[in-house]
């Protein structure tokens, strides 16, 4: 136990000192908190008279304050105080380096814990609280039984799922065949041990498109990619080792358990991605989502090797995914999206074998909003779901066709069809409504007063239909963001608070570069929104956000409209035909059945 004098040099602010005094007192130290109106001379005299081993002064730094503090230290030196007493300074804007420059023995800035100050008083080295990095990986599907609360919709979905199953189980495609090869012939552990790829590449290139075929035949890469050099790979390994040694991760949710917070990466370069992921984890992201380039979704087959890409989207190869996945923190959930293109089932297999925690599959969005032929994506999506089940990989069912103009009720009907099919096949889907200022919202004035009601209505509608996890995305607040980073971070934080108030399981957030299209997303832009969300959650705590009665009315309308869409699909009698016919989004609404992979499906057995 030692004696500690705490002296506010600030004429007003001494709350921080009071908190520290209480903490030190609880730790068994004798603390004396001096009143806030003493002169430096009086503080020095009292410290000498009381024989304190430690003096802690607080002062908000501002114009001219550094000089005042330097004079205080001179005075303490002249009085012989420093021979026995160590002096620390704390307050807003205090930095350790500045404190040292001014002659203090320690400096304590905002966010200082009692433990840090206690270590100074007890002359021990401060070791950051290990609980800061004690985040555990969470399964957001745990606790959901997927029971329907709406019997009418349940019955209709059962009919549609049976329709899809009967149709898809007797069909295959090059994508399905590649996934089968990856599943059966490729052993990730042997590959990691540099024991090769088995016999995979004896069969694989024949099932690929032109670019991968050329790569496997001649080694020629996609024009915007290059291999990393050995020097770069060695540099990455030391960077990772050094950074990991000092890493800890924040928890953003304050007093809540959820929502988990995800952000995306996909700069094009796996090394830059790793840098972005480490920063995201440190600032509190619970999960990260892999974005691949748009040409990847339209290319039959994957390239191989450790590749960097000059444009948006990081190329999916075993080496890229492996290094990115292995670099993440133990608690970080990792999602690799499979939802939209010609490699959907193989992405699920590859991601699962390389340790991904989640994937993303939606036949309707991929076929109507992402350019893949509906027939092809129905077959590939069906098989992808089977692989997701086999590897225990939950997946979200995204509804981004809303961004093209498809009304929410149609996008939701498509999402529920895929989710129902997944549950019947034994998989664990997660519903992903958009929190967005979508074209439908703009045209019909659904958010003229606020951004709360219609987003809340989506969650209420889905909860009224089925007991399933909900993960709004992607990102929340889509089309509300501007290039102004304050506005953008604020928009994200408010939508995050709405998600928290609605008790959703997870959210995907943007960076403050969301609306900026002039270049890659920068790492500070990611930190901006994570900080904003953290502050939002701190503000909200266990309190709520109350939607107006309009939310319940909109939810009821959505449910009725979803039922109508399901009726239309059943009436069509063929799911693929229903996609083409516009039942789940028409051309007039901005949904265009894709053409990538057209005429590549064949029947089997």
């Amino acid at each position: 136990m030692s004696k500690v004098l705490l002296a506010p040099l600030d004429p007003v602010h001494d709350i921080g000192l009071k908190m520290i005094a209480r903490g030190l007192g609880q730790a068994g130290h004798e603390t004396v908190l001096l009143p806030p109106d003493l002169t430096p001379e009086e503080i020095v005299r009292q410290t000498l008279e009381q024989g304190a081993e430690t003096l802690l002064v607080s002062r908000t730094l501002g114009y001219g304050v550094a000089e005042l503090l330097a004079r205080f230290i001179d005075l303490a030196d002249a009085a012989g105080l420093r021979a026995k007493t160590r002096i620390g300074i704390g307050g807003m804007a205090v930095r350790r380096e500045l404190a040292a420059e001014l002659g203090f023995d320690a400096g304590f800035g905002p966010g200082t814990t009692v433990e840090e100050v206690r270590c100074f008083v007890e002359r021990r080295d401060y070791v950051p609280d290990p609980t800061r990095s004690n985040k555990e990986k969470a399964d957001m599907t745990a606790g959901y039984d997927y029971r329907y609360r709406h019997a009418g919709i349940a019955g209709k979905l059962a009919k549609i799922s049976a329709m899809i199953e009967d149709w898809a189980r007797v069909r295959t495609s090059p994508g399905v065949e590649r996934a089968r090869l990856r599943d059966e012939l490729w052993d990730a552990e042997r590959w990691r041990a540099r024991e090769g790829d088995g016999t995979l590449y004896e069969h694989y290139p024949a099932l690929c498109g032109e670019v991968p075929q050329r790569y496997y035949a001649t080694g020629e890469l996609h024009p915007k990619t290059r291999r990393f050099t050995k020097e770069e790979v060695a540099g990455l390994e030391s960077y990772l080792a050094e950074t990991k040694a000092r890493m800890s991760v924040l928890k953003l949710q304050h007093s809540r358990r959820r929502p988990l917070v995800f952000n995306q990466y996909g700069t094009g370069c796996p090394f830059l991605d790793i840098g972005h992921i480490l920063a995201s984890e440190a600032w509190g992201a619970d999960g990260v989502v892999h974005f691949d380039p748009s040409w990847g979704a339209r290319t039959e087959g994957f390239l191989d090797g450790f590749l960097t890409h000059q444009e948006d989207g990081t190329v999916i190869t075993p080496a890229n995914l492996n290094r990115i996945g292995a670099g993440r923190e133990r608690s970080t959930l990792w999602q690799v999206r499979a939802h939209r293109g010609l490699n959907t089932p193989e992405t699920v297999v590859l991601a699962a074998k390389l340790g991904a925690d989640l994937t993303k599959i939606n036949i309707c969005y991929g076929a109507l909003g992402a350019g893949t032929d509906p027939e092809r994506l129905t077959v590939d999506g069906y098989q992808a779901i089977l692989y997701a089940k086999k590897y225990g990989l939950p997946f979200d069912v995204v509804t981004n066709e809303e961004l093209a103009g498809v009304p929410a009720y149609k996008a939701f009907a498509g999402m529920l069809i895929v989710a129902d099919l997944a549950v019947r096949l034994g998989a664990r889907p997660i519903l992903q409504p958009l929190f967005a200022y979508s074209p439908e919202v703009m045209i019909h004035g659904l958010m003229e007063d606020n951004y709360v009601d219609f987003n809340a209505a989506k969650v209420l509608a889905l909860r009224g239909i089925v007991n399933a996890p909900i993960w709004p995305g992607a990102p929340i607040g889509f089309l509300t963001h501007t290039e102004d980073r304050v506005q953008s971070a604020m928009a994200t934080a408010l939508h995050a608070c709405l998600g928290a108030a609605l008790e959703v399981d997870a959210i995907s957030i943007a960076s403050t570069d969301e609306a900026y299209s002039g270049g890659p997303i920068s790492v500070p832009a990611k930190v901006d929104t994570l900080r904003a969300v953290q502050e939002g959650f701190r503000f909200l705590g266990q309190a709520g956000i109350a939607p107006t009665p309009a939310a319940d009315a909109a939810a009821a309308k959505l449910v009725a409209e979803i039922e109508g869409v399901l009726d239309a699909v059943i009436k069509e009698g063929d799911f693929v035909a229903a996609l083409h016919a516009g039942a789940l989004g028409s051309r007039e609404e901005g949904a265009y059945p894709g053409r990538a992979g057209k005429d590549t499906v064949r029947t089997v057995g």
Partner: protein
Amino acid sequence: MNKALEQVMDALDVETFFVCDSEEAGRKYMLGLLKEFGFKDVDVVFAQYEGPGVRVRGRAYVYRPADRYRWLLGGTAEGAGV
């Protein structure tokens, strides 16, 4: 390249308020400033003009994806933006 710039992960943003009479003038000041600092890969991310002047954020990419990052490699790599 300056030692501190070598440690920039990707981009350097500069935010300020220019006293000027239009958004266009503010954008020009920002791009000019970033070029004067020696950056080549520059842009204005955001600008908002009101009567007293423009609130503006400029960006200089020190590295783009697929560049060779000095924070990873030490002093041997070539940066793209400076």
